[in-house]
């Protein structure tokens, strides 16, 4: 749904003069632009500082005299970002694959199939959204370490599985997809069933193609969740075999300390993939929020 249909503004009974109206409108734009500046400023600062010499960052120039692209090379090498970057990409891809698989299936089941125990299961899933990580973190760590139950391979510390498997399902994604799937007209399913279609084929051939927007929303949130994860990877990676970018950046922050320009270059590197995915998906993403959002 598009929000572009605005409230009919004037006509009929109106006391405001045209001049007053223009002033009012200008005021609104002023607020919007001020807000936008505040939101964007830290990003601007990040980029401008990442291109400065160390001296320029200390004397607080607004923009570098000569952009120091070398900072990016230096930060990349000093923080061994090649390793972390590749790790983060692989971890994110694996997590997203699993997440899409589990949440599309579960979202479909909760939205379109009547089965016993459905409501209990669904409310149980939703309840997990309220649980703080502080409670689950420690047992999960023991689980992954292989203390509670034996795991294939002994321990999962420093493995790919520790960083992906626990995030391959979450209540939020299932809820979002369920909301959308439940709105699909029943007639479609009736027609498909007469043609001998079962649930799986109906899901893959009919439901998924018309659900691009909510699936994109799940993808974007899943992507940011996996890419931005910090606390858990910090815990389960003790070597850099599978250590992701965020933990690498945190290490770099401790290490680079006062070298603001390199620090900022590192920060810019870590947000670029997120920015690309965001700008590519943002259209479907807003649609997804609007059509599945809350009280639809």
């Amino acid at each position, binding site marked *: 749904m598009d929000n572009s249909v605005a*409230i009919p503004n004037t006509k009929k009974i109106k006391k405001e003069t045209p001049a007053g109206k223009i002033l009012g409108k200008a005021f609104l734009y002023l*607020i919007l632009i001020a807000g*936008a500046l505040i939101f964007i400023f830290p990003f601007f600062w990040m980029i401008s500082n990442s291109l400065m010499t160390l001296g320029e960052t200390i004397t607080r120039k607004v923009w570098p005299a000569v952009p120091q692209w070398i900072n990016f090379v230096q930060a990349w090498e000093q923080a061994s970002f090649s390793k972390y970057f590749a790790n983060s990409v692989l971890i994110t891809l694996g997590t997203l694959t699993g997440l899409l698989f589990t949440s599309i299936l579960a979202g479909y089941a909760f939205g379109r199939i009547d089965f016993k125990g459905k409501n209990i299961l669904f409310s149980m899933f939703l309840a997990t959204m309220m649980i703080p990580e*502080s409670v689950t*973190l420690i047992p999960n760590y023991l689980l992954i370490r292989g203390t509670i139950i034996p795991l294939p391979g002994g321990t999962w510390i420093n493995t790919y599985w520790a960083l992906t498997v626990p995030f391959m399902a979450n209540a939020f994604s299932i809820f979002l997809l369920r909301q959308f799937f439940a709105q699909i007209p029943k007639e479609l399913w009736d027609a498909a069933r007469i043609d001998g279609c079962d649930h799986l084929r109906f899901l893959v051939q009919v439901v998924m193609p018309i659900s691009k927007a909510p699936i994109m929303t799940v993808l974007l949130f899943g992507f940011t969740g996996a890419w931005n994860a910090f606390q858990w990877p910090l815990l389960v990676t003790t070597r850099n075999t599978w250590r992701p970018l965020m933990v690498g950046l945190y290490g770099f922050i401790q290490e680079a300390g006062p070298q603001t320009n390199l620090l900022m270059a590192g920060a810019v590197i870590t947000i670029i993939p997120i920015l690309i995915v*965001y700008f590519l998906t943002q259209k479907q993403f807003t649609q997804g929020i609007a059509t599945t959002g809350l009280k639809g």
Partner: protein
Amino acid sequence: MESSKELISTKRRSAFKQQELKDQITGLLFTFPALLIIFIFGIFPIGYSIYMSLFNWQVTKGPYIGGQNYLLIFGSWSNLLVLVAGLGLFALGFFVWRKAFQTLNNGQRLAHLAGALVLILGGVIFVTGWGLMYETGNKDFLNSLIVTLYYALGTVPAEIIIGLVLAYILYQDIIGKEVFRIIYFLPYITPSISTAVVFQIIFSSRETSLANQFIGFFGVDPLRWRFEPKPVLNLLGLNVSGLAGGPSLALVTIIFFGIWSFVGYNTVIFLSGLGNIPKEIYEAAEMDGGSKWDRFLHITIPMISPVTFYLSLIGFIGTFKAFNHIYVMRTPSAQNSVVTTSLLVFDRFYKANQYGVATAQAIVLFIIILGLTLVQNKLMGERVFYG
């Protein structure tokens, strides 16, 4: 469907039965992968946490010690009893007070008085219990609860108000609406570790830092920002110390970051909520000659209340979960003035290796969140207007 129902024969009926069975199996099969992961990593750990909290567990499991880990928090069970009794009385007083407002009989004034008395009594007992706990219990944990509360009160209401205002303006006939929305949402999706680093530099204690130059413009002396453990009220010249003086300047800096990174999410959700308000209502109000402000106050705010409720719930739960940016932005010199409960639990576990103590603290945090959610549900849920 109607006509097909009339045609049901026994054969048809068995076909339906078969479909039902098929649905049952498919439903369970489809939910199984998600269930497996959510159960193992989301539900089982709660039970296991409770189990762990009953042991002297330091890296490896030690002997069973019952409620000892909880006693470390509360000091003694009687302290907890006093605190809970105070809370109970407070709730009772509130209930009587409210009932008195609803009924219009002669006993009303008396009930009001009784309600107020019980309310005050409950409050006093609660504070006494808190004081006792503070004497003998775990000060760090109780401090962290106050820090978390400051953080929640500093971020959630501001995020809601700013989010609603921005969404309401964007919902008007605005050129470049898309661009504004993209920009507003940006801080929410970018990694907090990366953006927190920028805030570190902007709010550094150096005289030349951007924040200090900014306040210098208004003639204010440089501040130490995220290195400053002193409460803001103290810095304003009031003679209060400790946590009674409000959040420390270091925490306020983190609150700034919290608001900055979360407002966009609220804006987007409010915007989609505004789209669901029927246009006819606005048109009718306009016919009646209500001003824009009237319409905002008497139509938008009540109609949007379910969204507001949802966002405040998510926001509050979020502040209790908040970890990454606080972990990155905290400084040793800010001491415990920025240590929220989720950080405290992490430190107990990760740095001190006291797994049993950490799980007990986490469980108490969880119970507090549950309680607050229920209260919020009760208080706000009644006022929410569901169309």
